[in-house]
């Protein structure tokens, strides 16, 4: 009896909450699936895509977000080894890289505007390059929220289990939006 009582005690169980993050990842994937299928059907029915050479800034933003995933992984490993100061440093670095990513996205849009490929025009496929990466950028903002919570958790005196939990959901989400951007970029490269 005593044994089973212990099982029912309300100890912190991260599993259901982690699962929630995964489900969010699924639903977000579906949303971008919706966007890209819009693009495919549009391109197929009109016989044209965006027809642009994508600005170089997108290459740099891609490199930055990949780098941010690497720093976040190092932060996770650091936490596993209980090296909190490295964890914090790497989280800060991830935030800086994320801002760099956002900056590069705006640079890319800026150079598109200069070439005349503006948001409003007669080709919805070009508008797509503004709208969909913008939606992705909103995800980056949400991701920054996760990173901040990990960072706050690392500075504040929360239990190791909770600290690890925050790092884990941050990692799930951040790697997802990293892969999501790579998908969008490759998609736009392949469907000109």
């Amino acid at each position, binding site marked *: *009896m*005593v044994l*089973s*009582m212990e*099982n*029912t*005690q*309300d100890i912190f169980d991260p*599993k*259901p*909450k982690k*699962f*929630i993050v995964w*489900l*969010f990842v*699924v*639903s*977000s994937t*579906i*949303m*971008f*699936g*919706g*966007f890209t*299928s*819009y693009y495919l*059907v*549009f391109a197929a*029915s*009109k016989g044209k895509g965006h027809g642009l050479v994508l600005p170089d800034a997108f290459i740099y933003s891609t490199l930055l977000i990949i780098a941010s995933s690497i720093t976040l992984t190092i932060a996770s490993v650091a936490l596993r080894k209980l090296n909190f100061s490295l964890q914090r440093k790497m989280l800060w670095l991830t935030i800086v890289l994320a801002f760099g990513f956002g900056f590069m996205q705006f640079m890319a849009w800026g150079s598109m505007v200069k070439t005349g490929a503006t*948001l*409003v*025009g*007669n*080709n*919805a496929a070009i*508008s*797509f390059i503004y*709208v969909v990466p913008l*939606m992705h950028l909103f995800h980056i903002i949400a991701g920054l929220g996760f990173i901040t919570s990990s960072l706050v958790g690392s500075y504040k005196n929360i239990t190791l289990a909770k600290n690890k939990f925050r790092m884990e959901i941050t990692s799930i989400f951040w790697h997802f939006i990293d892969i999501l951007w790579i998908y969008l970029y490759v998609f736009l490269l392949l469907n000109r």
Partner: protein
Amino acid sequence: MSTIALHDEHNHDHADHGHHKETLISKYIFSMDHKMIAKQFLVTGIIMAVIAMGLSILFRIQLAWPDKNFPFLETFLGKWAEGGRIKSDFYLALVTIHGTIMVFFVLTAGLSGTFSNLLIPLQIGARDMASPFLNMLSYWFFFTACVIMMSSFFIQTGPASGGWTVYPPLSALPTAIPGSGMGMTLWLISMVLFVASSLMGGINYVSTILNMRTKGMDLWKMPLTIWAFFLTAILGILSFPVLVAGVVLLVFDRSFGTSFYLSDIVMGTNILPNEGGSPILWQHLFWFLGHPEVYIVIMPALGISSEVISVNSRKPIFGYHAMVYSLIGITVLSFIVWGHHMFVTGMNPLLGGVFMITTLIIAVPSAVKTFNYLATLWRGNIRFTPAMLFAIGLVSFFISGGLTGIFLGNASLDINLHDTYFVVAHFHLVMGSAAIFGMLAGVYHWYPKMFGRMMNAKLGYLHFWLTFIAAYLVFFPLHFLGLDGVPRRYYAFTEFEFMKKWLTVNVFVTWAAIIAALAQVAFLFNFFYSIYKGKKAPQNPWESNTLEWTAPVEHLHGNWPGEIPTVYRWPYDYSKPGHDADFIPQTVPFSQTMSSNLPHDFEGNEEAEKIQQDWEIANPVTENKG
């Protein structure tokens, strides 16, 4: 004795841990308890249903008496009914908002929100949802969405008027019709909040069901309600995001001048600059959500009926596994049928043929479910509680509405029937009335669990019969209008010679609708009166097997004092031969029911089978047992 002491200690711990000081606000308003959130969803859903029903009566009055003046309408509606006659613009707003509220706010949030929240933790044996906080947020997003949607009645240009499917260009050009302006903007804001609410709810339901079941509750021991809520939530997670994608592009078309859905448009003498988009693409994105949405509406109702019919037939549900597999079948198929809403958009006939086949295949799992309901009723020891009547009513509507689905799913027949009253009749029976009846069955059945009191059965019978008959009288004649080619969403049929003969039918339908609306007074009175004055509910009023009836009548945060009960058997052991009572709750182990155990109960556990065999040898069966 020591065990009891431990329980109490645990209780104490839990109370400290779960809710520090329960204030009025934390208990009734920003509650994180799934049972309170369920009640919040239900009451909000009922209020929205009453509003949407009121709207339908208004446009039914217009349809029945297009040439008559009703001064009271001007009193209520002001300039929208000048001279006592509803304006055509406002008529379109009425049908649009009626549809939106009924489909999304009543039958999605009101139905799933109420019963998933109430029953998932209680029936799988969990203390609460995976994230009670998200759950609370889900309700408040829903509530805000309702308020914003209703606020569009208080603006100069009126609510959105392009139909609940908000097709562009009416939805994409703010100056197209009055309802395309501010009203449409509010519609979009409201729907974004609503989708966020649905996703938070759905994600929570799935995570809770997969991760937080009590000991012994494997997937195949879950009640069919839980299966239905689970698959409904999955449908929502996989389809609502696509609507968001569509809405984002629509917002850009409306507010920033892009042309995702717009091309070659002339307004008055004004040629719009938009070029290159296609409104058909909105239809694809919308119906990719829209069709799963109708299953989001009906599946929880089907799950509730399965439970109610089995309990009140005092028989195991017929074909439990088939019921689950047909729900899974419906879930999967619902994603590949959206094109049947678009047969007349100029779709490639070959593609139309594909969508036709997938659509008609859905008839198979639907029919499996229907026959299983009938087979469960067959020779059952039926208790006609109000909940049971409503569940049977659902089966009736599901059959009569489902049959016309086979007509509409046929691409060539749909050319004639598209956008006529035949479609209106079809979906009001199969997803409107059927889902509402499922919801009402749930309300009558789980009312004791929600409020600790019983509803009045006599008022329930009155409510059922009036609603059931009136619903058929409203929707059945509409099939014939549709077959004759009478189009839906028209303000008046006085201008068309061939439609004039249907005016008398419209008068009849409107009277039936008014009776149906009045019948709801019996329900509303019963519902709110019984919260305070109803008969006190016993622990297990319907002698049901599922876990929620083992929790105390008085609600407490955490659902069960002490340990969460362990589950030993499936939920449908009703009238099991050899057992003295006609129900065996899921918490009763097989060791206590030796006289009724069957070989397959042990799922191949040889040791248990041997114990059973030894017992049977020691206790030979007497002739008149069972």
